[in-house]
């Protein structure tokens, strides 16, 4: 494994918190508590380093780790701290091989931080990339599984010292099903570790550079705030995104169904969008943006809502009447829009009878 490690500072982690929440497209859980835990490890003298994707050797084993469960529970049931590490160790015991690096399966939201914590605890670098480039609600919805990762052995572990290693699973959907049910038993949150992946595979199928991307996005917001510039413009400049809409939330219809927050938010336009209406359909994440009845953005492209003034990302569980927001569209990575990926994470996979149409260029 090569050199080009970047060592992260407390400032970097604070920027990551903001950037990861933007990439969470409304879901993925709040990274706040993870950020606090990561900072604590740094203050205790642990090192946190990020390794470029291309620096992985073919035979390096990479462990995908993260938290599984309901983000709302994660806010009040705070981790013991080593759940993901225990899950990773359980997979290592089952395979008899040690991980050389960890990677996030989901850069959007809270799971941006879990690999940081596991990496700092295990003394392993975190690979600069992830399996989604955003957030999605289920395990199988990541590029690792979409592009052929065998779904065993994976593991989940909790704060009570319970662990389950899934030594065989029929397919990635069964891994999701068994892990989800076990996580509910464990108290609705647990740490998971995916089957070990070879460096060569990770280089090929991980969404590249997303840790750096999230940190850069966060710095763009922080810098704009400090310099009293428009943070929305700063985000768009930092990520090749499109401003889809500026408006005020006038209605939120949200319910819990099948363990997800499902619903629709309606916005009335402000400024250049005055007179127009935008509807956003959500299932934990923002999935479809519909302007005056016409879909203008769909999964897997990223639909992100940020506060119009502060650039602060707005998650689906805090959506409410009166918020002034900018809705941004960020093009997803080509790994997510290939036909085999759309079968798992395209609009139809979420029950919408819609074709995926890639986001068009910036509105300027």
């Amino acid at each position, binding site marked *: 494994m090569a050199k080009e490690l970047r060592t992260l500072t407390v400032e970097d982690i604070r920027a990551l918190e903001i950037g990861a929440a933007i990439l969470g497209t409304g879901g993925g859980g709040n990274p706040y508590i993870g950020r606090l835990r990561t900072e604590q490890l740094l203050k205790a003298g642990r090192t946190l380093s990020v390794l470029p994707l291309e620096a992985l050797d073919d035979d390096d084993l990479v462990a995908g780790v993260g938290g599984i469960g309901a983000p709302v529970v994660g806010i009040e049931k705070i981790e013991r701290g080593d759940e993901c590490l225990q899950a990773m160790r*359980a997979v290592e015991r*089952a395979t008899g091989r040690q991980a050389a690096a960890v990677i996030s399966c989901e850069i959007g939201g809270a799971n941006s931080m879990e690999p940081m914590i596991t990496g700092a605890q295990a003394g392993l670098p975190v690979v600069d990339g992830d399996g989604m480039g955003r957030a999605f609600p289920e395990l199988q919805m990541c590029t690792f599984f979409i592009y052929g990762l065998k779904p*065993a052995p994976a593991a989940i572990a909790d704060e*009570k*010292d*319970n*662990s*389950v*290693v*899934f*030594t*065989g*699973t*029929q397919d990635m959907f*069964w891994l999701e*099903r*068994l892990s989800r*049910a*076990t996580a*509910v*038993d*464990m108290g609705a949150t647990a740490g998971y570790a995916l089957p070990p992946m070879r460096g060569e595979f990770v280089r090929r199928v991980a969404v590249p550079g997303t840790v750096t991307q999230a940190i850069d996005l966060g710095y763009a917001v922080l810098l704009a705030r400090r310099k009293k510039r428009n943070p929305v413009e700063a985000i768009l400049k930092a990520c090749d995104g499109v401003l889809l809409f500026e408006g005020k939330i006038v209605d939120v219809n949200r319910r819990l169904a099948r363990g997800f927050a499902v619903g629709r938010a309606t916005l009335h336009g402000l400024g250049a969008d005055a007179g127009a209406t935008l509807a956003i359909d959500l299932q934990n994440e923002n999935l479809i943006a519909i302007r005056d009845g016409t879909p203008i953005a769909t999964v897997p492209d990223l639909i992100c809502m940020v506060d119009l003034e502060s650039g602060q990302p707005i998650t689906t569980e805090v959506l409410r009447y009166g918020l002034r927001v900018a809705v941004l569209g960020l093009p997803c990575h080509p790994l997510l829009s290939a036909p085999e990926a759309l079968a798992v994470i395209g609009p139809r996979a979420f029950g919408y009878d819609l074709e995926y149409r890639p986001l068009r260029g910036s509105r300027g």
Partner: protein
Amino acid sequence: MTRIGPEQMDDLALGAAVLGTGGGGDPHIGKLTAMAAMRRHGEVTMIGLDELGDDDLVVPAAMMGAPTVMVEKLPRGDEIVGAFQGLNAYLGRPVTAVTPIEAGGLNSTTPFVVAATLGLPLVDADGMGRAFPELQMVTPTLHGIAATPMAIGDEKGNSAILNTCDNLWTERIARTMTIQMGGVAFIALYAMSGSQARQALVPGTVSLAIQLGAAIRGARRAKRDPIDAVLAITGGRRLFNGKIVDVQRRTERGFARGDAIFRGLGTDEGHELQIRFQNENLIALRDGEVAATVPDLITVLDAESGEPITTETLRYGFRVVVIGMPCAEAWRSEAGLALVGPRAFGYDVEYRPL
């Protein structure tokens, strides 16, 4: 050391259903899979607990789930061997014997599939001396033996290894996984040394079941009362003669739960018996008074044939004799009653030994 062949499976299954106290799953299915495995791989050597060396590694294998589901979701056949081998691989050293964990019901016969297929001796013992609905309800728990590492698997190729903080958590997580796997799963757990097995297991329960089955069938042939034969062997007594007049049964959180009402016949004319069950018969109330409770064994037998009737087959009109049999001594200790006494099942009554 005894040789056990397919021809003894009829007796074993019949006797195990008596010890199953209504649960443990219909032994018929376990019998068929055990007989198929023995015909294919040969007879099984059964050894007593006293024949185990201190350093033997003994692993119980079993089927887990709701008996109501087991009746119609038949096993593929090799799942239990898969779970056993999964745990064996995880333990990293060879297992030297397999044992039933539950002598009552189909789990008396399922370990024979493992013993025949892998050529391992089967220990004449179990962890209950009867059947119980939950994983932690075994005598090894009383001796501080951990249920995990535990292997679990299904017919679809899903498998997992559990490690838990205590045996109650093993039950909780394994039950959820069993439900996800379709209501039935196959497990290997409570790996223990030979010396632990000698201390913790209930001895001689497989041969007891075979003896019970042979006695019932012998009595039928000789036109004697098969129920007397059962009571003579187990030291049990008749609790009630009657007819089933109502059954409430639901499959809930992975269990067959409910109650059955019996109206008295003959000497019990004018009286009523109610049995409450959770897979197994847990408590018998005669005219509202407790007549018998867990951990003692309550079994419903057909009045004519002595055939045990499991909770999932109870229905209106059956003429039955309800019998009570004393449980294994280990269960009558304070720790034993805390684990499997009436209060452990939510009944606020004192246990009074039969």
